[in-house]
């Protein structure tokens, strides 16, 4: 049972960590997902009064001083801080120590879209608005998109592959897919993977306002009266580990990663394509050797925009045929917001909860059925259900699609 698909290694998830608007760790987040709690509120940061969009799923009560010393805070953008906190939780849970050979055989691949966007924002303000001609020496090492991955590698001694993937809203899924492939192929024994985003600052939200796809009042995925997405922030980090390695040391296996596929629409920079999404969904099932009937739950991309939700439902309906009416599909973005490059990582928690705990996180904010989204979207309340296999969808601006398949451990 240790290998599958012609000699490939099996991949276990042995640790998970997070910080997001729903909680500063996994238990708090899972409780909020079970209760259908909404993490969206009035945004609180400098110049927010100049924004048209003033709501978001912001991490509240964040005091980096509780986790990092003064020198570290000077060097870590918020997206790195979030990542390091989530990574520590994940590694602690896994029980792995990366001294010696294991460190050489392990790495980190993370997703982010904006990287150190708060650092860009603060320092542009200093030089343009305040007219200063000098910036702090750590601006570049703080803002670079690979900063979080590099600090994770240093913190835990991961000396194998380490890099960052930036594919907008699919970044985390692409990152986790690559980590999965590396462990499955035997290239690495363990990978820290997932992603983070900290884009809730004046410049970050102002940029999104320009596209006019943001909601001013709420995120209502799949609901006929939905009127746009709501941004969130946070991180999710997981330990993907060679199955035999995990079994031999007696680690608790939270779920098994069994498939991954990616596709490109090659069509439009912002409008999604049902065909492109469907190819990634079908591809992930094929890669996993799963039949459509075996999938019990899909964590949707479900942004709450007019375009995404109907396109995603069309893709799922086509990919699953009759089974589309039997499976459950929910978007948890109405709770934790759209965490952009980190969103797939936070949504992975809902997938693990479905498989391990038999609880399906709901689509909250659901008010009116939409004939173009006529699937079981688990409206407003969590549901108990036994599922053996799940998918996690991510479809990014740029037409980049990435879908992961997981199985109960």
């Amino acid at each position: 049972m240790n290998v599958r698909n012609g000699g490939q290694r099996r991949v276990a998830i042995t640790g998970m960590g997070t910080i997001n608007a729903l909680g500063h760790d996994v238990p708090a987040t899972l409780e909020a997902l079970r209760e259908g709690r909404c993490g969206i509120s009035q945004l609180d940061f400098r110049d927010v009064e100049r924004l048209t969009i003033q709501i978001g799923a912001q991490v509240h009560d964040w005091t980096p001083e509780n986790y990092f010393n003064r020198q570290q805070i000077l060097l870590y953008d918020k997206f790195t801080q979030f990542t390091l906190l989530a990574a520590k939780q994940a590694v602690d849970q896994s029980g792995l120590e990366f001294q010696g050979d294991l460190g050489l055989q392990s790495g980190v691949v993370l997703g982010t879209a904006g990287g150190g966007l708060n650092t860009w924002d603060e320092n542009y303000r200093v030089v343009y608005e305040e007219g200063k001609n000098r910036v702090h020496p750590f601006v570049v090492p703080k803002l670079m998109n690979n900063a979080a991955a590099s600090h994770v590698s240093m913190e835990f001694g991961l000396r194998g592959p380490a890099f960052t993937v930036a594919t907008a809203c699919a970044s985390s899924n692409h990152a986790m897919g690559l980590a999965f492939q590396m462990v499955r192929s035997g290239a690495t024994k363990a990978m820290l993977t997932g992603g983070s985003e900290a884009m809730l600052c004046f410049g970050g939200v102002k940029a999104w306002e320009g596209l006019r796809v943001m909601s001013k009042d709420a995120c209502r995925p799949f609901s006929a009266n939905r009127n746009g997405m709501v941004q969130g922030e946070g991180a999710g980090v997981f330990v993907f580990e060679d199955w035999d390695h995990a079994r031999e040391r007696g680690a608790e296996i939270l779920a098994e990663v069994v498939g991954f596929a990616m596709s490109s629409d090659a069509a439009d920079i912002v409008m999604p394509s049902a065909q492109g999404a469907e190819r990634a969904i079908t591809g992930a099932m094929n890669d996993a050797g799963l039949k459509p009937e075996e999938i019990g739950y899909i964590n949707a991309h479900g942004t709450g925009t007019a375009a995404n939700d109907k396109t995603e439902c069309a893709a799922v309906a086509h990919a699953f045929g009759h089974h589309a009416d039997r499976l459950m599909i929910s978007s948890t973005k109405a709770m934790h917001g759209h965490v952009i490059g980190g969103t797939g990582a936070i949504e992975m928690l809902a997938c693990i909860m479905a498989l391990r705990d038999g609880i399906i996180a709901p689509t909250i904010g659901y008010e009116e059925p939409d004939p173009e989204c006529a699937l079981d979207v688990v409206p407003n309340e969590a549901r108990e259900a036994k599922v053996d296999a799940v998918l996690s969808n991510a479809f990014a601006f740029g037409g980049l699609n990435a879908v992961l398949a997981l199985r109960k451990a």
Partner: protein
Amino acid sequence: MSDEMRTRIREIIAEQAMLEPEQVTDDATPEALGIDSLGMVEAIFALEEEFDISIPFNANEPEASEFDISTMGAIIAAVERLVADKAA
């Protein structure tokens, strides 16, 4: 409102749609002129910049927005109203 202003609005929309201003007739719909949702967002931005106004428009629910984009005539009238409100 002045003809000059209506002409300027037509020019701005025409530029976005890569058409001649005369083709932006009052009864033309965005679809008929080949203006998709991203094109409409661009045109609205250009109109806001030109006249220093804020146009209430959400690409997710164009029909529910206070800003009527069903035809070019409706857009021109709505921009005129916003400019007049600003002056008032």
